[in-house]
């Protein structure tokens, strides 16, 4: 059993241990609960220094374990049906596969596509519009959004405070059973910070441990020439906000970054998303309008909606040949990280019920 959860260790195993010890004291060494897997944040080789302030919230095994239980717990939503994991599914690099916009409580729909949770330690802003500057403050938004979890943060804290299991988890993670917003949010951060994707075929290719096909090699060359200025490796984003010419909807147009800054230059600008695991995170764009990478390629083949804030790079005949599109898609598939989406440290705790 590579991974276990605290309640197994906390209740079942000691009981079994005691029973076992009673029967056969000499076996004590073998039946002691194994030391929990040591969780620690490790910066992958070649990655820049993280933006997250780890000094304010060092990742610990118990903090991570608490964060994971919170991440997968519907108790964060008004009626207990929606957890973070409802819209951020590991197999899809922690996005909501198949949903153009987030599908929340009472089947209410959001207006934006749920982004992938990966490599957030390097993220300088959160959400498509960058309205949140600190990962610790990020979970408040989906918890309180009426079309996502529709709950008040204070109610969540009260619910957790009344739960003895959580009291024990907080005790382990923070040294006392006090449950408050800062602790809850920091535990969630610890779980999310550990979601690091850095072992795709592309990464191993760079390390000389993997070979690329000719198509993938050409795709990488096209990528470096046409895409890498915004989707900068190794994070495959430069954390900037840009208008990539996705046509605003005729009704209920999303102004993007503008709603945060009220600056005219930010109209229709959205955060440049990372392309890591992009083949797993369909649909695409801020509102999930493109269901396939093929559609994305066609968009970037000179199909830009012109507006004053359209990024200059798309102004002067930005086009892709059919070969470019095919090879670029082949290259993007090399960014899928199988280890990341199957890492058992991140998988749901027992009892988690996935939701469609």
């Amino acid at each position, binding site marked *: 059993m590579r991974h276990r959860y605290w309640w197994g260790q906390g209740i079942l195993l000691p009981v079994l241990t005691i029973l076992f010890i009673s029967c056969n004291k000499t076996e004590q060494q073998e039946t002691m609960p194994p030391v929990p897997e040591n969780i620690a944040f490790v910066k992958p080789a070649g990655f820049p220094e993280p*933006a997250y302030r780890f000094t304010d919230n060092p990742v610990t095994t118990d903090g991570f374990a608490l964060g994971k239980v919170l991440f997968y717990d519907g108790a964060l939503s008004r009626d207990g049906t929606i957890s973070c994991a409802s819209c951020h599914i590991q197999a899809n690099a922690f996005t909501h596969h198949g949903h153009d916009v987030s599908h929340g409580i009472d089947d209410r729909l959001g207006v934006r596509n749920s982004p992938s949770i990966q490599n957030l330690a390097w993220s300088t*802003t959160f959400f498509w519009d960058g309205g949140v500057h600190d990962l610790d*403050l990020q979970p*408040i938004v989906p918890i309180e959004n009426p079309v996502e979890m529709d709950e008040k943060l204070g109610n969540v804290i009260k619910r957790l405070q009344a739960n003895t299991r959580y009291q024990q988890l907080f005790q382990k993670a923070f040294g006392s059973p006090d449950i408050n*917003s800062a602790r809850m949010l920091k535990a969630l951060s610890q779980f999310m910070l550990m979601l690091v994707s850095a072992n795709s075929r592309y990464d191993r290719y760079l390390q000389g441990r993997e070979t690329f096909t000719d198509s993938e090699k050409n795709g990488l060359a096209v990528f470096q020439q046409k895409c890498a200025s915004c989707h900068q490796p190794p994070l495959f984003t430069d954390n900037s906000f840009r208008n990539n010419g996705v046509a605003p909807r005729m009704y209920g147009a999303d102004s993007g970054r503008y709603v*945060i800054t009220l600056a005219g230059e930010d109209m229709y600008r959205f955060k440049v998303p990372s392309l890591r695991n992009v083949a797993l995170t369909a649909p695409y764009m801020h509102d999930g309008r493109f269901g396939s990478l093929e559609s994305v390629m066609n968009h970037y083949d000179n199909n830009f909606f012109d507006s004053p804030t359209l990024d200059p790079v798309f102004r002067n005949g930005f086009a892709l040949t059919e070969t470019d599109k095919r090879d670029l898609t082949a290259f993007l598939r090399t960014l899928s990280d199988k280890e990341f989406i199957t890492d058992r440290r991140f998988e749901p705790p027992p009892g988690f019920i996935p939701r469609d």
Partner: protein
Amino acid sequence: MKNYILLIAAVLLASCSKDTTAPATDPSETGTMTLEFDNRAGSDDLILGVQVYTNAQGEKLTITKFAYYVSNFRFITANGNVYTVPQDSSYFLISEADKASAFHTLKNVPAGDYVQVKFMIGVDSTRSLMDISKRTGALDPATGASDMYWGWNSGYIFAKLEGSSPSSTDRQKLFRYHVGLFGGGFNNGVKTLNNTREVTLTIPNNGKAIIRKDRRAQVHFFADALKMLNGTTNISVAANPNVMVDALSAKIADNYTQMFIIDHVHNE
């Protein structure tokens, strides 16, 4: 009987002597100051929900919510000494719906005769960017700030004025003014509007707030809710029934800069 007269005389003498308290000389001497925030509507007491008021645009309205943050208090003596309240305990949320929020007691205020008060309306950018563990009490998004925090554009709502008006063009005849935004600039990002405002108030009638180890003073502020709407820009509930993250919020912030006065000071 004679004893009573003596007692009354003593009390009267004591009352008089308060105005001629010996100057504070011991730099380590401290006392207590209480801040009282009395919410008003023009010349009247603010009554939520039922009382009809009229704004400068001539629109009749009732107010159902009035709440605001004041922070970063500084007290200035007649000879220019400045006492800055320690930053961790200098954020106050006053809400008309919560009577207890009207009073805030400051302990360990250096002895002195204070004549001027400076404070900020809102929550400064430094605090707004601080680690979540530094946002407790009135600043905790789960408790004190639960009604005064924008999750999606992270920061505090500095002032809220809500109510209803027959003039409102909102479908439900409501109006909502939520003013926040601390200037942004995090991670060298772009700047947003900065709707924090500095206020300087002088105690009227050459009054003083006298702080000694055995003397406490209560500074009684008036906050006129209607001044959020009336001022350099008269806000119309017909033209703009809802203002939140909007350029107009800066005009309301300019208005609320003029919202406070010190009505009087009690020296005990």
